[in-house]
């Protein structure tokens, strides 16, 4: 079985092709999904890629949340469909309330683009199972509104339940509370991550191949479950 992983293209998505390529390099079949079509084409998992859906108008991810494809994805995610939101995809997952909290303007007000060191904190999610807990990785980060915020009770809940999947190491790039780079939902099928694993899947174009396990994790989980 070769799992089918859908990659959604919204108007303004930038990283859909890289995400699809990462899926293929990891051994999956990438399936293009369109924002205006609620048909998920029987995919086994979905990636919401980075970019600037709907021009980031209103708030990042606020309009994408109401796209027809998102209605199907929200329903399916609640039923267990694995969903990874990267950067703008993470913003869309928060706007959709599949993940708690929100992403706000970087505290520096600068758009940050650099290779970023992270520590993987949780390997129970479907997208991080192939990592070692505590593993340090280096993948690109590029965002203007990547500051993760939530109220203290929510942050404590995320920490207490082990739902922080990755944290920034070194200088916090965007003011994220508690250095949070990524979180998961309670069930572990939905993950949001601000840095970009899909840009670190082969030596020629990435700083490392440290992003690849996000994609192999879900493929292995799906194959193991079938």
């Amino acid at each position, binding site marked *: 079985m070769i799992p089918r992983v859908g990659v959604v293209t919204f108007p303004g998505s930038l990283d859909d092709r890289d995400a699809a390529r990462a899926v293929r390099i990891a051994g999956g079949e990438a399936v293009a999904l369109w924002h205006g079509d609620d048909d998920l084409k029987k995919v086994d998992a979905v990636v919401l890629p980075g970019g600037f859906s709907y021009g980031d108008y*209103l*708030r990042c991810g*606020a309009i994408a949340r*109401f796209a027809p494809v998102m209605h199907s994805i929200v329903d399916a995610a609640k039923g267990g469909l694995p969903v990874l939101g990267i950067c703008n995809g993470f913003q869309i997952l*928060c*706007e959709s309330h599949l993940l*708690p*909290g*929100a992403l*706000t*303007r*970087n*505290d*520096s*007000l600068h758009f940050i683009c650099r290779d970023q060191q992270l520590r993987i904190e949780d390997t129970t999610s479907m997208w991080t199972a192939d990592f070692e807990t505590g593993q340090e990785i280096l993948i690109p980060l590029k965002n203007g509104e990547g*500051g993760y*915020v*939530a*109220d203290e009770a929510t942050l404590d809940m995320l920490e207490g339940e082990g739902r922080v999947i990755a944290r920034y190491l070194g200088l916090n790039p965007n*003011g994220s509370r508690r250095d949070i780079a990524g979180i998961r939902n309670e069930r572990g099928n939905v993950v949001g991550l601000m840095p970009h694993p899909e840009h670190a899947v082969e030596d020629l174009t990435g700083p490392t191949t440290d992003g690849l396990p996000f994609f192999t994790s879900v493929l292995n989980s799906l194959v193991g479950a079938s």
Partner: protein
Amino acid sequence: MARVIVDVMLKPEILDPQGRAVQGALGRLGLTGVQDVRQGKQFIIDIEGTLEGDRYDLMHTLAEELLSNPVIENYSMRVVDDEQ
């Protein structure tokens, strides 16, 4: 015609880096004593007829769910009278 005005502001506990940058600029331009600046958004929505009943309720819902993000923002909504 009815005019609906929705103001959206970041909640007080959410850091507002844009407001902070504006605060710095005000000081540099000679305005002394600025203690805080918060930056928000205003939506001005002109709508046919009068806004009442279900449509009023829907406008409120959309002000909360689309125009603002309740996790980080508060909104206030008011209907100003028609200009006839």
